[in-house]
């Protein structure tokens, strides 16, 4: 039911762990719903220089987390904010229908880390990126 790419990112997740010099940390999801993603970014000169993640969740949650760290690494903030849940899904060669919400989690994770970065810089993220959202409800 999972593509080879999903299985690869699940079994060998990239960029797992924490980032000591992180200046943007986001956490999304809810243990009640069965997935939580925490993402650490080090942003400098408007570019995501480094990224790590930790995820509690099913195979798809871990794989979408992993691929999204690959997608944002080296990208500008604007480029990273443009990454949609669809782009995450496509990068994994698709996800089963009932797992699509995991790609939403990854998109939200990226946004939440960037919003945290803005706040730490004393910038209100809302006018730039709209609601940074952290869904309390299960998708």
């Amino acid at each position, binding site marked *: 039911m*999972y593509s080879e790419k999903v*299985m690869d990112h*699940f*079994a060998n*997740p990239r960029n*797992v*762990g924490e980032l000591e010099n992180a200046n943007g940390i986001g*956490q999304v999801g809810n*243990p*009640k*719903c*069965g*997935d*939580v*993603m*925490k993402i650490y970014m080090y942003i400098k000169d408007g570019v995501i220089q480094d990224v790590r993640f*930790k*995820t*509690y*969740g*099913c*195979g*798809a*949650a*871990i794989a979408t987390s992993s691929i999204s760290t690959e997608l944002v690494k080296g990208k500008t903030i604007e480029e990273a904010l443009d990454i949609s849940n669809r782009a995450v899904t496509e990068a994994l060669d698709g996800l089963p229908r*009932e*797992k699509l919400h995991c790609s939403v989690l990854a998109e939200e994770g990226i946004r939440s880390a960037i919003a945290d970065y803005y706040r730490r810089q004393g910038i209100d993220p809302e006018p730039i990126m709209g609601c940074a959202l952290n869904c309390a409800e*299960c*998708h």
Partner: protein
Amino acid sequence: MSRFVYADNAATTRLSETALSAMLPWLQEGFGNPSSVYRLGRAARRALDEARETVAAAIGAKPDEIFFTGSGTEADNWAIRGVAEILGQKGRHIITTAIEHHAVDHTVKDLEKHGFDVTYLPVDEYGHISLDDLRATIRSDTILITVMFANNEIGTIYPIREIGAIARENGILFHTDAVQAVGHIPVDVTAMEIDLMSLSAHKFRGPKGIGALYVRKGVRLPSFITGGAQERGKRSGTENVAGICGMAAALEESVQTLAASSAKIEALRDKLIAGLLQIPRTQLTGDPVNRLPGSASFVFECVEGEAMILLLDAAGIAASSGSACSSGSLDPSHVLLAIGLPHEIAHGSVRLSLGEENTEADVDYILETLPNIVEKLRAMSPLWEEA
């Protein structure tokens, strides 16, 4: 990665050699229709009759109390919907439990839409109902009590004899879904005062797609499928002769070897349970004592079930989980929630179910593998660091 350990015998079992040999003649030269009057048909008819006797003897029933069905699910549907149809004028109240298999649970939920009133008895942390609750719930319009014999997810075995006695005293029909019990623990429909009982062959090393409903003589049930009047007019459709013969052979063998094999499987299960409970923040689910011989079910905190199942699979171990992600729904299994586990813990469930083919080496291999999987997933879980 040549190693393969099948530890999902509660999901299905490997067809036994005995069952396969009992089936083959009816798939090959003995292909006749049991309703045909010529020799080829009569041979198939005789095989059916013998299979019916074998199945009946294995559960303490008489042959004419056995009706073959296409699955355990079908037997559950027939029993429950049939009683509702026949007794619906007399009463609209059905008593069941919060931990039934979907074959029962979704069936009574469907009846609720048609004006039936269903009581779902709550369960304690081991998954047990209270017999006092059951007695207190009985009303003058109660027409059916349906309680499973043993639970497929957590392995808990229910006091069926006591429940049967309560139903009989109160003149209420008693159905039990014995799909996980038959062939694994002693079952006697007469001694246990069971009126209706569902069986499924593939849980005791028979083939898939064949089951049976035991209907105590004197209990009236409507025809479930109309047509050519097979199964004494109650369940039409040309009989699955090979399936039925395979079911009977598998059941006969399981019951004959039950004492020895269950002792062996229990010993393996207990080793598995003791070993896995060494993992920190791990709980056994279900009754630690009154549980199915092969069932070892757990929750591991801060890790998600499907992720564990996939990594077990990568290591050659087949097991299952009641997490939301494994079931394709948003909530973890209703059974795990009913025993009082919070959602976030119920998502971390793994069920290992052993059968007679499992060896001590299998258990050792699981004990070498699963703790590392839990550790690996916890190391990448943001919940574990908070914990």
